[in-house]
């Protein structure tokens, strides 16, 4: 199939107007050698065959249910009204709103987004969105370096491992040093952080709830950072902010994170969006687009992209970042979704998730499984007898999708992260507890055997 409107007559007429006698002639500027490469891509399909092919591929996936998988992306309730409104084609097929008179739809929705994110984080300034949580952490570190003119970054390993990897990738070429501070068991130790601090430190980066799901003592960590004149960067789960103390309240200068949990499907990890909110002092250092309020010639309120002097299309090599396209549509999904749920709805989601997770943990303990104790939000760690990936596989074979492997670097041995959300039903919990118990039991038996064998 194709999407071309051209009839043979159209083509003849247009070539005539242009004054060439063939399509090929339009490509005369291309060196001979480049023409007609042999591109090995299958022939086109009609729409029925196309969807048939895609449905076959989709049938080879088993979408999880019950919200048991976490690790930065979680399945949450998205009301039917959210995608209906956010995915209206006027929004979906528009470009960046560079002509404000005919882009008030997106500009105002983005202003609403900024307002909501500042409400959640308590910090007064938000940009219009970033790519994802991980790259937002990296951009936040760069911002801190620009602002403080210091070249070392202190980060807790409680920050999502992939976010730390991305930050490392971004910072390396700029010779910015990264001091990673390992968790003590489950949380970040103030002493460990402090021991790394000095007047060369641009920022301290801590995630709350941390990657393992446990809560950090954010205010103390923020103070420690400020004591050496470093910025404190809080990496947060925006949904958790419906009930947890906000980054502003704990003293953060910058809040960043991934917005998927606010109303985007899990999408195999993308697209979602990253967010960044900052204190007034950091406004001019903020990367990415910002929408501001103003008036038109008739005095009517209107919205427009503003403070663009920070951006690449104006400042080029002196821009605060090279970001151009952001993740506006995913941020719009979150905007509509937050308006649909309202504060109470968000609080319900957060509260129900926490309760479900704690119920799950208790039931696992009752079943004799090794839940690592601690104050966790809606994810927590269970130690297993078998390697995490094997446990996850064994669960998947029972059509239960759960168990994010805990990297060995955390020194917790074989362990998985379990999550729960408001979508987790009691039977999801029961099934998981049974399945895990079985799997563990089998492993124990297996180990027994090995030992016996060893004995004789």
């Amino acid at each position, binding site marked *: 199939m194709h999407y071309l409107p051209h009839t043979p007559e159209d083509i003849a007429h247009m070539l005539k107007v242009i004054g060439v006698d063939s399509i090929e002639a*339009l490509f005369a500027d291309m060196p001979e050698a480049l023409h007609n490469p042999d591109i090995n891509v299958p022939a086109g399909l009609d729409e029925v065959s196309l969807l048939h092919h895609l449905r076959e591929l989709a049938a080879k996936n088993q979408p999880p249910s019950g919200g048991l998988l976490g*690790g930065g992306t979680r399945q949450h309730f998205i*009301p039917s009204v959210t995608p209906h409104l956010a995915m209206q084609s006027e929004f979906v097929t528009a470009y960046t*709103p560079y002509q404000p008179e*005919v882009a008030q739809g997106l500009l105002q929705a983005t202003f609403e987004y900024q307002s909501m994110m500042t409400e959640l984080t308590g910090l007064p300034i938000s940009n219009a969105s970033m790519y994802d949580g991980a790259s937002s952490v990296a951009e936040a570190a760069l911002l801190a370096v620009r602002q403080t003119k210091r070249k070392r970054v202190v980060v807790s390993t409680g920050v999502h491992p992939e976010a730390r990897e991305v930050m490392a990738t971004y910072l390396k070429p700029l010779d910015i040093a990264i001091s990673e501070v390992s968790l003590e068991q489950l949380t970040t130790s103030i002493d460990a952080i402090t021991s790394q601090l000095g007047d060369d430190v641009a920022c301290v980066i801590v995630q709350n709830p941390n990657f393992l799901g446990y809560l950090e003592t954010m205010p103390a960590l923020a103070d420690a950072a400020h004591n050496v004149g470093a910025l404190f960067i809080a990496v947060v789960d925006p949904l958790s902010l419906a009930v947890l103390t906000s980054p502003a309240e704990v003293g953060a200068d910058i809040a960043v994170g991934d917005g998927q949990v606010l109303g985007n499907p899990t999408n195999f990890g993308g697209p979602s969006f990253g967010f960044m909110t900052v204190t007034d002092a950091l*406004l001019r250092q903020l990367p990415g687009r910002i929408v501001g309020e103003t008036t038109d010639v008739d005095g009517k309120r209107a919205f427009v992209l503003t403070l663009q002097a920070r951006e690449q299309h104006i400042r080029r*090599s002196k821009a605060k970042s090279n970001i*151009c396209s952001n993740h506006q549509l995913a941020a719009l999904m979150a905007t509509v979704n937050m308006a*649909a749920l309202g504060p109470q709805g968000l609080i319900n989601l957060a509260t129900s998730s926490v309760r479900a997770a704690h119920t799950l943990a208790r039931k696992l303990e009752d079943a004799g499984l090794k839940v690592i104790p601690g104050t966790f939000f809606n994810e927590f760690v269970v130690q297993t007898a078998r390697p995490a990936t094997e446990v996850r596989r064994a669960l998947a074979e029972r059509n239960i999708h759960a168990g994010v492997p805990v990297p060995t670097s955390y020194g917790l041995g074989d362990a998985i992260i379990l999550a729960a959300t408001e979508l987790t039903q009691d039977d999801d919990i029961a099934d998981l507890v049974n399945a895990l118990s079985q799997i563990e039991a089998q492993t124990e038996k297996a180990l027994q055997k090995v030992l016996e064998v060893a004995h004789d």
Partner: protein
Amino acid sequence: MIKEPEAPVTVITNKQGTHQRDADFPLIFERAKPGRRAAHPPVRDGADLADLLGEANLRKTVPKLPEVSELDLVRHYTQLAHRQMSIDANAYFLGSCTMKYNPKVNEEAAKLFADIHPYQDPDSVQGALELLYNLQTYLEQITGMDAITLQPAAGAHGELTGILMIRAYHNANGEGDTRTKVIVPDGAHGTNPATATMVGYKVVEVPTATSGEVDINALKDVLDESVAAIMLTNPNTLGIFETNILEISRLAHEVGAQLYYDGANTNAIVGRARPGDMGFDVVHLNLHKTFTTPHGGGGPGTGPVGVKAHLADFLPKPRIKQEVTEGGTRFDFDEDIPHSIGRMRSYYGNFGNLVRAYTYICALGREGLKDVSGMAVMNANYLRIKLKEAGYNVPFDRINMHEFVAQPPKGLKTLDIAKAMLDYGVHPMTVYFPLVVKEAMMVEPTETESLETLDAYAEVLADILKRAEHDPDFLHDAPFDTPVRRLDEVKAARQPVLRYTNP
């Protein structure tokens, strides 16, 4: 076209508190009232959060998010959609942005994959991995490169990925410290120099020759062993094909520099020519341009990067690999990339968009892709002639590729022309870019526009000049019929109001 409700709005919102015809359109916050709710999630009873999480960790004040009924929510965002121009409702010929039709079947396809999780067992997402693997191979074929990463989240992100790989490559060759510059043409998109800076390189600009191509002599002057890379767009931002590309590639490689291809203009050559064959070492593609994933009002885009074999060891991880065993083929993540620059983002890229782009490629197939560039280039050349007939000036007047740059007649401002277009229901072209042309009007009609729409577009531009003659003021006052009229952008920047604050 239908007015959005005024009274239901104004009475609630406008400052004077009285009904007036031309009131402000309300913010969702201004439609809100405590206690209202649109969506009704399930609620799990259980222990008090204070008991589970500790009082100290709990927020003291409820975030002031809007509270609205489902109908008020629907009215608000439906009316906002009516205050927004889009490809689906308007001609939208933004140069460099490739605002082509975004097929609806892509959206159906994306829905089929929306609910899988990045951390589930790979054996439970074989379909998704197979799709990604196929897409990697198709994009290798289309670009003429040896290996592809699907991770970057946008074009600029792809640029960053590519330049980081080039840096890693030079480091590996012990030239990390000696190669300190990246060369970009003065017509380059802002992301090119911005990217070079993010990777710690010094940016060297080379001028555009009278031909509209890179000034090759100027290039030679700055090209030496201190150069890490040359970043080019081909066709360039003037819509002109760099005819010396093969020589440029030779020159670059002679001094050991790497050649970077900004793929934003791939729509001009897709299916007909390949950056790999032109001698480029690294390529990024904007799937939201050539491969029809929606722009979404600014994103999410997707910027896969392709490299030649000598750079494959530096690709970000993970990539998708195929394992052919007796049990059949299986797909998995490949974390084992010796000198990988690391990760560029979480998980595996903007998967939802990768599904859309894959759907598009499967729909068109090899021949279909070739027709895309053919018709895109023909449309652009036809429109160039029409705008000249209409009285516009085309500085580099030669056969162009998928886009061209024009200028208004002497004395007229591009901004005024753009604003006048709005009253015709036509979205303006890209304005004031590239910087090498004064009052630039950068027009890219794309292949999905019909002859009638191109003629109509030209007529609008002709009509504007005619009216400007009789009534010069109208140009400065336009637009008249848009939801809001010209904005006070200085005020927006001088006294920034960046969020709603409860009155």
